[in-house]
């Protein structure tokens, strides 16, 4: 016979006001197997916990019921206390008689609340009788991290993990790390130059003894689970031997072919052998194979001729490397919504309609114009310029429903840069609302309006068209209630931040969730902002949704701290709520394998002494299983059960109903 103790909490008056806790304790004493009951003012307090521990020892209890608040509040507390007194923590159960009873049934006679508390407690007692002691699962941890994405968030995460003394491999799709931030001119609200603050970090990452950069590389396949991931990474052929290249740039100089520069967003051309930008890290060029006549048609080869260290190899092929990691940080960043969707603004049709990122390049001293604001069509300095905000953002019909968060701020910055660079120029901003929440952000936008003379017009633009070398902008000024038409030299669209192409494919490889916009889902939007539902995989930066640089950096550091905490011990312990297969009755139909959302179930064999396979059975990988129980309900022969929520436990509770 079990020796169960039932502790009924009054929670001050929170429970006691509508539940006769004394009567519940008395009634429960009559349930078979219950040897001790009591009620107490605050079970979660130190004296309450002490009382529980003492009762366990004195009464030699082997199971604990605490009827109190929601298990989401204090289950851990009471399990810990039970453990401290020598009971397996999973032999302690909490009955929810506060949130789901005393607080929702206001009968002052206490009749209703007492009956319900009795029922709920009795169901928990019967369930507890079927609780097996469980031990937390120990998983060995491989102390090496993978960071996917070499933008500012990824760099920050990699640096912090490396500083913590752990190895990191930083994988970047492009030939250089730096991400979108490398494109920016100045940064709000301090106006320091983006390159100046980013480049040192890029170099630091390159030189750090604990960081290995895999640029021009992509994650192909992810297997395993927290502490033990096996990842295949495709290292795309650069056609340049990274180890021998000195970065002299001779090859780029001599290359006779040019094509559009993706880094400069088509504002200028680059060579076919190239580094994306002068401060690229690593400073190793790559050959753009589809555009290279040597690789395509065996014509030219000038780069190889001039290369001193002879590190160009036109026959180089992609390499797949397999690495093992204990944790993964995903920091794959964002892209801008293709403006072609917004025909009314003339993007792609009218040369002098550009997007915000292109304006960043025009304003950047390392950009195609050397930092002078010149319009793309004829290189003239625009005397008047119109900024249109919320292009695609907050527009569920044509774009996305969310706010892209940074556009208000960077547009204000653009007007400032413009007024500093083009004296006497006039800027106009069409906006819906000015959103400048953030430290010193509101002051920043005010300054753009008040000091730098930006004309803010609240309203939407209906049409943009060309007329005599000008870009005509028609729109509404809702504050004055008039229609306005502005004769501009250039128009800049603050287009929506969207997830990267292929974000869904990567998420599927990693087994993490994403929303309808293909932004990655955090585990909990408030309390677990950098975790994912897949243990051991963390998120940082704009792959989760629009955010600014400080937020991205903070998230990179946050993800790194999670990784370092995981790496702080050789083994990690986790809740033992996992499925377990009864090998004797398993039919090997693999329905569980198909149904499992985590690919946590494998096909295993049972062999006889001669080593011959006698039967196939399912096997749950404890490291991967998250304990959802989908497999249990799918199994017709009832050969899988979920520890902590076994059929027996659930049945006992139903039977006590």
């Amino acid at each position: 016979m079990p020796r169960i103790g039932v502790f009924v909490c009054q929670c001050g008056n929170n429970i006691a006001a509508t539940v006769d806790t004394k009567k519940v304790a008395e009634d429960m004493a009559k349930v078979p197997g219950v040897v001790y009951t009591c009620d107490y003012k605050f079970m979660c307090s130190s004296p309450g916990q002490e009382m529980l521990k003492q009762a366990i020892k004195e009464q030699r209890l082997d199971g604990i019921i605490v009827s109190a608040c929601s298990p989401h509040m204090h289950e851990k507390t009471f399990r810990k206390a039970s453990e401290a007194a020598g009971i397996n923590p999973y032999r302690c159960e909490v009955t929810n008689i506060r949130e789901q009873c005393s607080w929702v049934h206001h009968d002052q006679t206490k009749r209703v609340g007492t009956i319900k508390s009795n029922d709920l407690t009795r169901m928990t007692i019967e369930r507890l009788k079927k609780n097996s002691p469980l031990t937390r699962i120990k998983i060995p941890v491989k102390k090496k991290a993978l960071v996917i994405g070499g933008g500012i968030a990824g760099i920050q995460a990699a640096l912090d993990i490396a500083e913590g003394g752990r190895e990191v491999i930083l994988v970047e799709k492009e030939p250089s790390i730096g991400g979108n931030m490398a494109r920016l001119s100045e940064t709000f609200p301090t106006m320091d130059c983006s390159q100046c603050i980013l480049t040192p970090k890029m170099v630091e990452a390159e030189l750090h003894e604990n960081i290995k950069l895999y640029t021009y590389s992509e994650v192909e396949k992810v297997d395993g689970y927290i502490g033990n991931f096996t990842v295949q990474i495709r290292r795309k052929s650069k056609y340049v031997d990274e180890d021998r290249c000195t970065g002299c740039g001779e090859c780029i100089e001599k290359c006779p072919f040019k094509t559009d520069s993706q880094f400069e967003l088509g504002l200028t051309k680059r060579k076919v052998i190239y580094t994306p930008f002068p401060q690229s890290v690593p400073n190793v060029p790559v050959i753009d194979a589809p555009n290279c006549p040597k690789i395509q048609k065996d014509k030219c080869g000038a780069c190889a001729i001039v290369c001193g260290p002879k590190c160009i190899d036109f026959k180089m092929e992609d390499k797949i490397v397999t690495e093992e990691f204990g944790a993964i940080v995903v920091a794959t960043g964002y892209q801008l919504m293709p403006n072609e969707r917004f025909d009314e603004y003339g993007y792609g049709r009218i040369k002098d309609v550009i997007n915000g990122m292109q304006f960043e390049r025009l304003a950047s001293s390392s950009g195609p114009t050397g930092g002078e604001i010149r319009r793309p069509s004829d290189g003239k300095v625009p005397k008047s310029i119109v900024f249109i905000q919320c292009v695609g953002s907050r527009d569920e019909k044509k774009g996305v429903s969310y706010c892209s968060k940074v556009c208000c701020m960077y547009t204000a910055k653009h007007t400032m840069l413009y007024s500093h660079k083009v004296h006497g120029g006039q800027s106009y901003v069409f906006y819906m609302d000015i959103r400048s929440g953030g430290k010193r952000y509101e002051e920043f936008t005010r300054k753009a309006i008040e000091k730098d003379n930006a004309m803010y017009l609240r309203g939407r633009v209906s049409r943009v068209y060309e007329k005599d070398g000008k870009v005509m902008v028609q729109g509404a000024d809702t504050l004055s209630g008039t229609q306005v038409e502005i004769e501009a030299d250039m128009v800049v669209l603050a287009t929506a931040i969207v997830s990267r192409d292929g974000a869904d494919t990567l998420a599927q490889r990693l087994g993490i969730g994403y929303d309808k916009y293909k932004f990655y889902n955090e585990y909990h939007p408030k309390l677990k902002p950098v975790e994912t539902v897949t243990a051991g995989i963390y998120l940082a930066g704009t792959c989760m949704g629009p955010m600014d640089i400080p937020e991205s950096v903070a998230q990179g550091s946050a993800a790194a701290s999670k990784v370092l905490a995981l790496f702080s011990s050789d083994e990690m312990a986790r809740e033992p709520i996992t499925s377990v297969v009864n090998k004797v009755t398993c039919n090997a139909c693999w329905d569980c394998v198909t149904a499992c959302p985590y690919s946590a179930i494998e096909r295993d064999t049972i062999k006889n002494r001669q080593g011959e396979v006698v039967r196939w059975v399912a096997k749950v990988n404890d490291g991967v299983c998250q304990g959802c129980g989908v497999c249990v309900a799918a199994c017709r022969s009832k050969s899988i059960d979920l520890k902590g929520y076994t059929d027996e436990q659930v049945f006992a509770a139903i039977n006590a109903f």
Partner: protein
Amino acid sequence: MSGHEEQSGTTGGYEPKIMAFVCNWCTYAGADLAGTSRMEYRPNVRIIKLPCTGRIDPLFIIKAFENGADGVLVSGCHPGDCHYTTGNYHARRRWIGFKHLMEFTGIDMRRLHFSWVSASEAIKWVDLINNVTDEIKKLGPFMEYRGLKDAPPQAAE
């Protein structure tokens, strides 16, 4: 053993017994929120918490009716919100099959309810419990099912 004393008391007359199978992450938390918000709802429901609706075997529902439930409610995260990413999609598939089977067997579908209640939908939870309770109250005890155990098997024809 069976608990759930008759709750005549204040309201007088019959009080139905309703069993709810809910997931830990959405509906259970939503029901908690109803508590923290001090909302009030009918006291007839007894919740059994499971990690995910995907864990809910249709047999749980049959077992609940066998144990004298007058109504059964199954609830979890909205599609797309599952803590385990797809557990509720699996659950929905099973429910589609099971619901039709129960319907064809002649179970009054006013006694078996399926619902999505998120962690923030305390109001939805409260309305759901109130509506389900009132509806089943009108139907009366599920005597058809309760009576089955005592009915002797018929001799084969």
